[in-house]
């Protein structure tokens, strides 16, 4: 039972990592850029929801505030691309890396200025009580996190496989020049992917905040999510989810069975291990075999 309990709470945590990792992968797939502020996007999405719904602030109903926050984050993502990243077109990767790291600092500071640096709790209807299923304690929020993450992954997968826009995004990432002449507005498509990853970050943020208190430094979780994305293969949506789950599950087990402190480094030890033995990540390896 002990093992099962660790597994379930690990999976729920892992889903949040997975959702943030999805954001990394989305942007990488479509633009070959890495957004190191993805974790801070998540935090910002959570705080926007908190600001809209908590009685202390605007007091809107949660089911109105949550979609609104997702839309706001989508627009912010698009505008970030439109006003900033588009102007870095043709610059080296490093420029985008530095820019997004700096952006993370700015978002953390701004969020702290608006909502204070103290931990706060989102008044979420998901954060109600626990279930006891055969000795395993399940939080409602944990179940919601798992369900939403699975649905999101499915939704995004369908989006990329089936829709004109999703396919256009894939095409634009593989060859921008060819995509232009197939009639794909490459820059607008890239803006949309930033918007989409903003929305995904907001979903992750809302779920994360439903599980416990948040503060502006919650975005540093993004580093673990980055490790998850790399473990998963960095170009693969299911890989990102799998990476997130692995990182999520490994943490509580390391905390339970290893000496104190090891749970902190366990995800990175695994990352190192994966990079040494499967440098392209778990999922990319499968793909190259198929070729």
């Amino acid at each position, binding site marked *: 039972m002990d093992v099962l309990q660790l597994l379930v709470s690990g999976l729920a945590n892992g889903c949040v990592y997975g959702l943030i990792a999805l954001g990394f992968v989305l942007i990488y797939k479509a633009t070959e850029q890495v957004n190191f502020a993805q974790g801070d996007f998540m935090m910002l999405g959570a705080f926007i929801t908190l600001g809209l719904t908590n009685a202390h602030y605007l007091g809107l109903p949660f089911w109105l505030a949550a979609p609104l926050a997702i839309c706001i984050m989508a627009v912010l993502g698009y505008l970030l691309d439109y006003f900033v990243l588009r102007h870095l077109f043709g610059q080296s990767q490093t420029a985008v890396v530095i820019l997004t790291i700096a952006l993370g600092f700015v978002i953390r500071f701004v969020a702290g200025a608006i909502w204070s640096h103290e931990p706060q709790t989102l008044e979420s209807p998901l954060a109600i009580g626990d279930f006891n299923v055969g000795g395993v304690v399940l939080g409602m929020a944990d179940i919601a996190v798992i369900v939403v993450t699975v649905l999101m992954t499915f939704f995004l997968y369908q989006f990329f496989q*089936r829709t004109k826009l999703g*396919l256009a995004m*894939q095409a634009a990432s593989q060859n921008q020049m060819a*995509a232009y*002449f*197939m009639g794909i*507005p*490459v820059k607008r498509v890239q803006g949309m992917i930033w918007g989409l990853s903003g929305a995904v970050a907001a979903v992750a943020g809302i779920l994360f905040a439903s599980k416990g208190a948040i503060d502006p430094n919650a975005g540093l979780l993004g580093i673990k999510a980055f490790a998850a994305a790399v473990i998963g293969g960095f170009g693969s949506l299911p890989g990102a989810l799998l990476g997130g789950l692995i990182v999520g599950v490994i943490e509580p087990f390391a905390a339970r069975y290893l000496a104190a402190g090891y749970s902190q480094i366990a995800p990175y030890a695994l990352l190192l291990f994966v990079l040494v033995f499967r440098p392209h990540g778990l999922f990319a390896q499968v793909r190259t075999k198929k*070729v």
Partner: protein
Amino acid sequence: MKPLLEIANATLKFGGVVAVNDLSFSVEEGEVYAIVGPNGAGKSTVFNLISRFYQPYEGSISFDGQNLLDRKADAVADLGIARTFQNIELFEHATVLQNLLVGRHRHRRTTLVEEMVFAPRVRREERKHREAVEEVIDFLDLQPYRDKMIAGLPYGVRKVVELGRALASGPRLLLLDEPASGLSVEETQDMRWWIDDIRKQMGITVLMVEHDMGLVSGVCDRVLALADGAKLAEGTPAQVQADPAVIEAYLGAGAA
């Protein structure tokens, strides 16, 4: 009859370098028209002007009576203009079939929601696009490569796939940038038959840049010779090849 593609007094400068100099020519509907010239003469630059990658400094470009300069690069395909590239620009991590299907992009009319749920209308459309692509595959004998990744294909096949992707978009004007470069004698021969059939069976107008004079004189109605971004000669392949100015540009003064 108005020409299908008309370029008038186009000039393009990169800093102090004049890449295209007061160039005018027009391509009639249904013909195969070639641009020849030594390296650096501005042939590919002309293609990049038509595909709206470069903005001309002066002059006008019109297609079927519409001003092309009003359009962005991604809006050119919608007019029915498709192109291939000198250095092959395919989607490397996708299969031949997927590459060709991307060519159908401009014809997709379904909405995002319909596509997400894979509605009956989407199924019908997909089937239609797949049929159009299969026709191209049959035409170019690409059947053995249908589900192969581009990244693993030999150069000659990639060249054909790129032609296929352009054809899949159902163009009225096809721009071919050095269709025979890097191909074997046999492959060049195939390319020649295909270009012939593209014109005769599909009724597509072809504008190409090519070095292989054998191919040019074999399939082209008219040829434009460029040097230093300006028109040197224009006419039938025989006329252009016999033109003293062309011979001089290719072989140097005194060779004529």
